[in-house]
């Protein structure tokens, strides 16, 4: 991932686990974002996240934000928190469905260290940790 600093990749990363932060009471921090990812994405309950599981969760997340259904998140739809730490919040304020989905395999493969097409527990933990680091760097 170090070679890739795409803003959308950052957004995708944050989007993957953002719900745990949003759905907790404001005062409490998510305690286990890796578990939150499994809870939301692990459809076959094997303790791992396949790309298909990841893709479906992320596409659904995009769709939920895209209130006017035009395939672009902008204005109130634009999830500023997804860009936390990217230092460009509000710079453009939009992301298209194509841009978003194009980043999904990049982000996924970036954390699939053993390249088996699945994120195992250690890889999910790394994903969640990277996301946490990014959120904490939010300015």
């Amino acid at each position, binding site marked *: 991932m170090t*070679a*890739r*600093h*795409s*803003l*959308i*990749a950052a957004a995708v990363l944050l*989007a993957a686990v*953002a*719900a745990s932060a*949003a*759905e907790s009471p404001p005062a409490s921090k998510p305690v286990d974002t890796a578990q939150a990812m499994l809870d*939301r994405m*692990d*459809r*076959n*309950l094997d303790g791992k996240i396949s790309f*298909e599981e990841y*893709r*479906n*969760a992320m*596409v*659904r*997340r*995009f*769709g*939920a*934000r*895209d*209130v*006017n*259904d*035009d*395939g*672009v998140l902008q204005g109130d739809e634009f*999830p500023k928190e997804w860009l936390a730490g990217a230092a460009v919040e509000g*710079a*453009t*304020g*939009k*992301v*298209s*469905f*194509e*841009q978003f*989905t*194009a*980043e999904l*395999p*990049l982000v996924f*493969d970036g954390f699939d260290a053993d*390249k088996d*097409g699945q994120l195992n527990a250690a890889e999910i933990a790394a994903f969640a940790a990277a996301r946490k680091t990014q959120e904490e760097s939010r300015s």
Partner: protein
Amino acid sequence: MSRSTMLATISLSGLLLFAAAAAQASIVTCESTNNEYRSCPVDASGGVRLSQQLSTKGCWENDTWGYDRNKIWVDRGCRAQFQVGAQSTNSAGKGDALAAAAVVGIAAAAIIASSKHDDHHNKNQNKNYNNSYNNGYNYNYDNRYDGRYDSRYNDNYRNYDNSRYGYNGYGGDPRRTFTCESRNDKRNYCGIPGRGHVEIYKQRSSNPCRHGHSWGVEGNSVWVDDGCRAEFAVY
């Protein structure tokens, strides 16, 4: 700004090259509209890979999409583009694919950097983007169901009522989930708590749950059969 424009130009060239290369492998769009089964004839003997999901409704291999030798099929609202034939496996050409992916990633970043000066980029994208998503049933959740199903299915379903975060919750989590189980491989029916699009959230059986074969939706109920046991999501 000239630097970012240059980067965008270079990256877009790479993107176009990548698009041209991808076009040589056949890309087929196959779409389940109105949640109905649809088959798309192709020569799938060389394999098929889902390359781009277009619907927010789930695309799950061997449940809501699949293929055999002469067709791709989709069901239950899955809409997607499929790469047919060459490079359909993950191992072959992985290095090339990753290189191309990196180019796309850079291109996407560059486009974002310049898009505020370039709004027309986005205007015609996504004609096919899940147009049915807003057609009513996410808005019309009926609270009258609350009491009825709370008492009947108390142990069986979880409530994801996070509407305080706006439309359909913060980010695409189900409104409700409920469990339905086929015991002894027999058919069983379970009432759907509320209205919305239903799909499998967690498959809990080793027996496969495949739409139209071992599970389905009839009216306000889900049926399961052949040992399918799953937690279903209502979106």
